[in-house]
């Protein structure tokens, strides 16, 4: 009898141990996934997968403007976010998102080594050091998993088949200087925005503003559609000191009103940006893109110098300069800010003829363009914020290029005669960010488990029709310093469960 009792007790103890190992007594991980309506389907699919590894997950759909302040205030724990970068360098993606208290650091991630590496990468001119710093950051965040790494979406645009010499750009800009239309000399572009906001290159509210402005104005350097920097108003440049760059200006360039474009115009352009309140009392929101730039000064009639307070990488300066179009000093001071935005004048391949920033803009060829006149006589930018209207207009032949086509209408467009769908590598990272400051996501094992628990392939295939690429971290393949050896977390529910168990769930 006594022995029998012991056996029963032992068996009970043993089953307790087994039950514990099986996680019977562990807490269940509860996860509320916040999202805006546009990604609700995706969030639902993710939640279903998380439920399969024993996480009690559910979706909550919000209005972006309501959700955003709550995220920033640290009141939410898991949220679907995205962040774009038109820099082709992690500078304006990794820095705001990963640096301690960065503007876009919604995960509240903080790591001394990452901060130091990112500081190095934005303050040294040596590309080898910068690259190795970025590689270190990627390795660290891959392991730390501050959030659930996601994917990058391609830019999908569609055009009529008779448009030549045009391709969508990674930064959504539409540079139509080299474009032509078979059987015509006029091109109409259906823009995804409701308004480009302004004609003043010093205060562009969005990428869409630049889409148009880059056709009217030139900058010192320009982007190719895949993000490479090429000379434009500057013919060459060199670093003359750790914090000093000299640019040689192209000669014989004229503004569309006939005034010559001089070094003084370049200096004036940057003065407007650097001086607080220089644009009729308002400061340029773009100032910080230039880094610790002190001043831009005239050396002689063809040379201009950029003087920095501290070392600043050449690649960052060049990427920034793409966004600063040169304005005519004489004309602008003559007509004032209001006169300038009413009738902008630049040195670009097309000049503004008529239209308003929130309906349609008609540009005409600038026959005196320094690189030779464009093939098109006329370019029209039409604001068509409603995606289905853009597609309808393309199908009816009213527009020749439609910006931002939704993945689910691509099939229909491809089947339509006379229309071709084109894509460019995207520059926006989509992810599920986690609040690393509070339980349960203050435990890296839980964050890693989530990275293993989600099978992205069917989601990207079914919802984004294959127009998305998985990312190993938030670093984009199109950017400088991308580590191609890091592979995205594989889908491994067993490992996810094991990690959760180790973390006490």
């Amino acid at each position, binding site marked *: 009898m006594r022995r029998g009792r012991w056996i029963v007790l032992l068996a009970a103890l043993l089953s307790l141990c087994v039950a514990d190992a099986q996680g019977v007594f562990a807490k269940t991980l509860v996860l509320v996934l916040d999202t805006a309506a546009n990604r609700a389907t995706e969030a639902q699919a993710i939640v279903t997968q998380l439920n399969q590894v024993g996480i009690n997950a559910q979706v909550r759909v919000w209005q972006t403007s309501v959700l955003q302040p709550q995220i920033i205030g640290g009141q939410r724990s898991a949220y679907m976010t995205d962040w*774009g970068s038109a820099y082709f360098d992690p500078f304006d993606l990794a820095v705001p998102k990963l640096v301690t208290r960065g503007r876009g650091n919604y995960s509240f991630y903080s790591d001394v080594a990452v901060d130091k590496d990112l500081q190095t990468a934005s303050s040294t001119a040596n590309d080898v050091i910068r690259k190795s710093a970025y590689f270190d950051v990627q390795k660290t965040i891959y392991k730390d998993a501050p959030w659930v790494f996601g994917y990058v979406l391609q830019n999908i645009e569609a055009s009529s088949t008779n448009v030549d010499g045009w391709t969508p750009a990674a930064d959504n800009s539409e540079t139509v200087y080299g474009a032509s239309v078979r059987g015509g000399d*006029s091109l109409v572009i259906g823009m995804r925005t409701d308004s480009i906001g302004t004609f003043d290159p010093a205060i562009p509210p969005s990428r869409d503003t630049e889409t148009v402005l880059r056709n009217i104005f030139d900058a010192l350097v320009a982007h190719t559609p895949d993000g490479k920097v090429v000379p434009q108003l500057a013919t060459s440049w060199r670093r003359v000191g750790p914090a000093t760059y000299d640019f040689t200006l192209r000669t014989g360039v004229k503004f569309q009103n006939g005034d010559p474009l001089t070094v003084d115009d370049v200096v004036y352009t940057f003065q407007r940006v650097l001086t607080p309140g220089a644009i009729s009392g308002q400061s340029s929101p773009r100032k910080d893109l230039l880094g610790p730039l002190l001043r831009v000064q005239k050396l002689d009639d063809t040379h201009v110098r950029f003087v920095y307070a501290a070392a600043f990488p050449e690649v960052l300066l060049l990427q920034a300069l793409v966004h600063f179009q040169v304005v005519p000093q004489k004309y602008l001071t003559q007509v004032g800010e209001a006169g300038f935005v009413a009738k902008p004048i630049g040195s670009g391949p097309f000049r503004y003829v008529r239209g308003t920033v929130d*309906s349609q803009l008609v540009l005409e060829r600038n026959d005196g363009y320094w690189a030779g006149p464009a093939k098109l006589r006329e370019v029209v930018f039409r604001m068509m914020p409603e995606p289905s209207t853009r597609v309808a207009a393309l199908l009816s032949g009213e527009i020749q290029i439609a910006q931002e086509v939704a993945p689910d209408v691509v099939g229909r467009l491809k089947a339509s005669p006379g229309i071709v769908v084109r894509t460019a590598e995207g520059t926006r990272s989509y992810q599920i960010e986690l609040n690393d400051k509070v339980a349960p996501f203050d435990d890296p094992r839980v964050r890693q488990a989530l990275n293993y628990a989600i099978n992205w392939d069917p989601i990207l295939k079914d919802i984004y029709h294959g127009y998305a690429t998985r990312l190993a971290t938030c670093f984009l393949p199109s950017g400088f310093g991308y580590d191609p050896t890091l592979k995205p977390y594989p889908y491994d529910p067993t490992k996810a469960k094991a990690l959760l168990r180790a973390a006490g769930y």
Partner: protein
Amino acid sequence: MRPLRILQRVLLAIPVALGVAVLAFFSLHLLPGDPVQIMLGDTNTSAAQIRAMQHELHLDQPLTTQLALFFGQLAHGNLGTSIVQQRPVSTMIAEALPATIELTAAALVIAVLIAIPLGLLSAVKPRSWIDRVVLSTSLLGASMPAFWFGLLLILVFAVDFRVLPTSGQIDATIALQPVTGFTIVDSIITHNGAALWSALRHVLMPALTLGAVFAAVLARTVRSSMLDAMGKQYVTTARAKGVSETAVVVKHALRNALIPAVTVAGLQVGELLGGNMIVETVFSWPGLGRLVVNAIFAKDYVVVQAAVMLYAITYVAANLVVDVAYTVLDPQLELR
């Protein structure tokens, strides 16, 4: 209506507009989000510069101070400067308003042209097949979302048949000399036939979309008030006098039946203004509705406040016009 009473009503519009502006101001500020943050998007900007921009735009001031600033400017006849576009709001509204008035007027014309004959027909022959068709169509028209109906029209007439343009106000290739800002009026003044044709083709679908709901409601009102009027003693008297049936319907019954129709029309102007926001977005129509929608998304308080005040004034004005029209249609009302 006596001139004094009209003046009274006009003056009443001022406190209404101001009150609505205050409401709009506080409800916009209740919504989370900050125009500077929205404007900057994903740009890598330092916290210091964000604060500086907020300071320049007075967004760091207490709400009451911001409201006082707004009213201070208003007292000087200045509607303020748009946060996003950095242009005077009055200019922006002046640019957008003609397009909206043109669209609304076109919608009204289309609605009246459809609704009055249909309402008349179905009232003259109640329970006939034509009456049934009118009733069921107007039910459909009143319940159809403008967003959906607009897209449907685009698909059928612009994409499949390619007889009308999908969106916009005029062909971009046509240069029109602006005189009044009204596309149709300007093309007539400047004898620009191509522009007129293009403008009319462009306005048709958005006006039909906007006017559909209005036509439906109006047709039903005309029908019921005509039925009512046709049963009145003065109609019997007119018939007894030997007046022709057409004259009975048009001169005697319709004139009286129009009074409720005018009320409905006046109240619907407010609906039309609301509908403008959707229709102008779908058809990329560069009017006030789209301006307001953009401004709300960008949290451009200054623009929204000014536009909301304008809406309020329009609403009051529409009601006033209705009251004046009453006295024209029914002189008895003057005595009350």
